[in-house]
């Protein structure tokens, strides 16, 4: 079709295990990413996100299990896989002594294409750094390096784009802009896998896998993960926020989870009627000398879900 990406790819991972000596980096991962999906891997450092991406890009071999990109097996058909994958590793794979333009030309030539030929593919990203094309990559700001690395990953017209923590250490505003860019990329028909430790970015993906210590805790649309939240969630604030978490934890067995959440504390209750929440929480806190107590129902966020899955898992 218009850009040659009419056939976007599907990624199928089955029974995947990867160990580094005694460390189980990935434990029995099974998931399928649909063509043209923007799929997020959400989790902290050590979750196994980078290992998984290195396996998909054929840079590592699994101990067992398989990964298919369409009908290509990442172990056997690695040469073909590498041709259709664009990979942006966590630490930028740029040559700092080359200029912006030289970096792009270098990556283009590896894949036997040219900047000119595929300019339209990277235009949205590249035009933001084009005024600096004669500058050495090492002299760019973090945000500009990120955009150059993305341009380099896109220059060979990949069908599958894999971005390892592209927004880590990037400020909240630049992060938003980067996600707007990804949404645009997706419209060209490409399949995109992206990892991030920022839970708030989950809602920007079509579907996400929440990961922790080599395991997938949940896979679904962000909205479904949030809707599946087990229990009732409340946000509480008082005049003594510093002591609120520890005080609430001891109030009642049916308060299952208490965490600080921005300016309030989020607490989860099980099997408590709405009508007796006041009795248990408000009265309980008053006895512990809290004042200006405010309690409201709260909508769970992905981070609430992640915290609860972590607690269940431990």
């Amino acid at each position, binding site marked *: 079709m218009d850009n040659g990406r009419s056939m976007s790819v599907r990624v199928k991972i089955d029974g995947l295990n990867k160990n580094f000596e005694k460390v189980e980096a990935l434990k029995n991962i099974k998931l399928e990413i649909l063509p043209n999906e923007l799929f997020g891997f959400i*989790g*902290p*450092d*050590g979750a196994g996100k980078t290992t998984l991406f290195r396996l998909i890009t054929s840079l590592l071999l699994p101990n067992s299990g398989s990964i298919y990109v369409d009908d290509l097996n990442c172990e056997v058909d690695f040469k073909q896989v590498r041709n259709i994958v664009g990979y942006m590793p966590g630490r930028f794979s740029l040559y700092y002594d080359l200029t912006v333009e030289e970096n792009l030309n270098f990556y283009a030539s590896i894949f036997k294409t040219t900047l000119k030929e595929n300019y339209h593919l990277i235009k949205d990203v590249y035009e933001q750094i084009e005024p600096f094309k004669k500058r050495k990559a090492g002299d760019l*700001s*973090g*945000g500009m390096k990120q955009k150059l690395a993305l341009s380099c990953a896109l220059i060979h017209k990949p069908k599958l784009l894999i971005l390892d923590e592209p927004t*880590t*250490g*990037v*400020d*909240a*505003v*630049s*992060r*938003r802009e980067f996600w707007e860019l990804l949404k645009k990329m997706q419209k060209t028909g490409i399949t995109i896998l992206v990892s991030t*430790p*920022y*839970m708030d970015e989950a809602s920007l993906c079509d579907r996400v896998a929440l990961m*922790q210590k080599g395991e997938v805790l949940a896979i679904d649309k962000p909205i479904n993960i949030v809707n599946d939240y087990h229990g009732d969630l409340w946000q509480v604030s008082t005049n003594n926020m*510093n002591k609120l978490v520890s005080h609430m934890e001891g109030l009642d067995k049916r308060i299952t989870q208490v*965490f*600080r*959440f*921005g*300016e309030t504390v989020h607490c989860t209750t099980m099997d408590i009627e709405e009508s007796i929440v006041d009795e248990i929480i408000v009265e309980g806190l008053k006895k512990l000398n809290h004042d200006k107590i405010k309690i409201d129902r709260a909508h769970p966020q992905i*981070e609430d879900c*992640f*915290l609860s899955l*972590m*607690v269940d898992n431990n």
Partner: protein
Amino acid sequence: MTEENNIIVVKDLVKKFGSFVANDNLNFEVGKGEIFGFLGANGAGKTTTIKILSGLSKPTSGQATVAGFDVSRETDKVKRNIGYMSQKFSLYDDMTVKENFRFYGGIYGLSRKDITDKTASLLEKLDMLDQKDMLLKKIPLGWKQKLAFSVAVMHDPAVVFLDEPTGGVDPITRRQFWEMIYEKADEGITVFVTTHYMDEAEYCERVSIMAEGKIEALDTPRMLKKQFGVKTMDEVFVKIARGN
């Protein structure tokens, strides 16, 4: 807040690199035991300020004192009174937990006895006495960050600078980390912290937000949200950093 209670005092601070103004006339104070959030977009000039306040870089003009010492003339005294940790640079992977404490304790000029006592009490608090002889590289990231924080405050500095201390850390550990911050602030250590997690901005007593070298806003999170007529610090940040 009285004068004597201000641990950091910054007055008309300017730092230029050639014609580029990285810090453009900064003025602020941070009190003893305060948790001060120092926010801003990448490239806004935060790192430049932190380097000046820790005696690593000299201001072009203006003044700053940390714990009563002038940052351009009394750099040694400044350095002795601060602690520093960041996500990237913290502890040595090829040393054990105990060796890291001993190494930093030595650098901070603590006596052998102080180092032994401090190491024991800090490790006990972290419930990590059993891991004291483990190489640091064998320790999970979340624990490493907590260790790095303990090391950064083992000499009871007046101020501890935390540069994105929780990047990449899981959400439970991130919260435990903040509990440690509160505890140290309660003991009177001033905490000067940068972060990209906007919920963490809410945990600070006061927050400043920098854009293009200037401090564009400085207040409690509550007042900032009121001032900008928004509900979250994220929205405050976006408004300021996008310049509208």
